[in-house]
């Protein structure tokens, strides 16, 4: 009953304060950005500009080759406008390319210069050999440049035959994949839930310290752990609200919502217990800022590995946000991987309980601090 009263009081205080709305406001902003600005999948189509410097009967052979891969089987006449200059072109669209066939060498050079894209001129010499001129941007790797150099040494047929002789077998093919937009959600959940919880609970403690109310609570028969747990409760409520506000409109029915709830509760409990412990060492938010900022930076590191899988050192796996990201990803995929999520959740719950117990002991001893 005392715990419930404390929790209701904390909810009232939070709802009349600033921090409560930060998470919800952030969630609304993230939702709006994701729905309105972030595409479901990022566009991987390359844009290329080509000019065929050769008689039309010869160039027609090249164009027919391109047309075979065109998604709608026909070229579209377009005007490409760059810096208020219009250039006539024929657009060929394949699954991974947008090829603009321009009408002059000058136009190709202009597009390479202004659009910062790779452009090419395919030219038929006097002795009827085909020459390829590439206009690069300077940032291309040596490997790419070397590839261009050898690309036309062998015939296309030889290269294609060599590629077809490669034995490529998928190790698994019965798995779900998140779209590019959905793939960003684990990061959002970790940031908006766990990391914000760490900062906001510390802010709540410092507000109470400033008002001195923690001392008034200390001379009542209610134990300090109830005071601390009621604050954790507010963090859990805001984390669940703000997370579901983002997840439901974007992910729909795909995630395991029960597992998501479990993982949100345990990770938010862990991070708020950590926030309580950090705050117990400082008198005000200014003093604690460096420590909180340091912890948040450390927690952000696994996000980098999440988006750049080639950088994934072993020590990152020791940072709590690493398993958080993996857990949220698994839940959002809707894999029904109960064992994995339960294992992670139990870990966060256990560590959270330990941190909370240490915090409780520290607050009992440092009420006047």
């Amino acid at each position, binding site marked *: 009953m005392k715990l419930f009263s404390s929790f209701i009081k904390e909810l009232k205080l939070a709802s009349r304060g600033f921090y409560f709305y930060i998470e919800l406001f952030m969630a609304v902003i993230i939702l709006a950005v994701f729905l309105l600005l972030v595409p479901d999948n990022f566009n991987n189509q390359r844009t290329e500009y080509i000019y065929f410097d050769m008689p039309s009967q010869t160039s027609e052979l090249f164009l027919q080759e391109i047309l075979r891969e065109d998604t709608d089987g026909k070229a579209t006449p377009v005007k490409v406008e760059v810096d208020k200059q219009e250039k006539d072109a024929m657009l060929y669209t394949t699954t991974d390319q947008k090829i603009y066939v321009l009408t002059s060498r000058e136009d190709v050079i202009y597009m390479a210069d202004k659009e910062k894209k790779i452009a090419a001129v395919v030219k038929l010499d006097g002795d009827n050999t085909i020459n390829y001129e590439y206009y690069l941007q300077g940032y291309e790797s040596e490997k790419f440049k070397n590839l261009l150099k050898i690309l036309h040494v062998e015939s296309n047929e030889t290269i294609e035959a060599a590629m077809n002789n490669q034995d490529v077998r998928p190790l698994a093919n019965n798995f779900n994949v998140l779209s590019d937009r959905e793939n960003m959600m684990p990061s959002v959940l970790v940031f908006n839930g766990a990391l914000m919880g760490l900062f906001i609970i510390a802010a709540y403690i410092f507000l109470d310290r400033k008002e*001195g*109310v923690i*001392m008034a609570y200390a*001379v*009542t*028969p209610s134990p300090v752990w109830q005071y601390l747990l009621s604050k954790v409760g507010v963090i859990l409520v805001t984390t669940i609200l703000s997370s579901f506000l983002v997840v439901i409109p974007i992910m729909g029915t795909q995630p395991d919502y029960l597992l998501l709830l479990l993982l949100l509760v345990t990770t938010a409990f862990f991070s708020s217990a950590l926030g309580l412990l950090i705050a117990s060492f400082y008198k005000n938010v200014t003093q604690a800022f460096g420590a909180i900022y340091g912890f948040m930076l450390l927690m952000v590191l696994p996000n980098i590995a999440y988006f750049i899988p080639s950088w994934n050192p072993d020590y990152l796996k020791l940072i709590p946000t690493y398993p958080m990201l993996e857990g949220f990803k698994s839940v959002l995929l809707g894999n029904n991987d109960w064992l994995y999520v339960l294992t992670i959740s139990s870990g966060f719950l256990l560590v959270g309980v330990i941190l909370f117990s240490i915090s409780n002991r520290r607050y009992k001893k440092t009420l006047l601090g």
Partner: protein
Amino acid sequence: MISVKNLYHSYNKDGKYQVKDVSFEVANGEVFGFLGPSGAGKSTALNILTGLLPLQQGEVVVGGYDLKKVSNERFNKIGMSFEQSNVYSKLTAKENLDFYRKLFDVPTLDSHTLLKLVGLEGKEHVKAGEFSKGMKHRLTFARSMINNPEMWFLDEPTTGLDPSIAADIKDIIKEKNKEGVTVFLTTHNMFIADELCDRVAFIVDGEIKLIDSPKNLKLQYGDKLVEVEYIEKGEVIKTTLSTVLPEDKRELQKIIEHHDIQTMHTKEATLEEIFIKVTGRGLV
């Protein structure tokens, strides 16, 4: 009752004690005052008695509870009013008191009754953050009575308050004491101590220099004087004479017999004067 034996406390645990070998007892129903200048150790001792600071060394029993054995139950018998107001500024006056009522295991006073008692009737639904300093202090004071405490700890209960509010607070303390509440207060205001306390302890640099009732202290340390204003040859003369010294007594008798007396007052030494005399230190 409160029993304190050989109490020591050092904030940094470095051998520099803010409270040194403090011993005293407070009987049930007594008003006991810790009188001393700022930094003397009054609040440190008070915070140990209320459990806000851990007991490092010594023996302390409050209301039958030994402070070496931690028990939150004892707070049902204790009320504590802080020197600095500490209420939730985002909650209304009533919400503040209603919340604290639910934290006790004993019957509590109605929030409305408490607010009326401290002159905050009609302010139930005003947020404490909108209160003046005096109103916040009254709310903090009201909260300390919420559980009908048997032991009431008051840290500088009237410091910084305007005289009329201070007078109200003093009246409430007197009233509660009449009901049998034991009061332990700290103050550096000798008038408050003189008016309210059955006994006072003078504390300087963490050490108790003396414990006695204000009346005994005045009898023991105060000079017995009379201040007289009389007319002589058309002029008002003012003089102070001892009621103990024979020559002063004769002089006083002569003035009464031969002159027109304008005013005549007996003059007692104040607690502050006695404090300075005993400790060699001022109260500020």
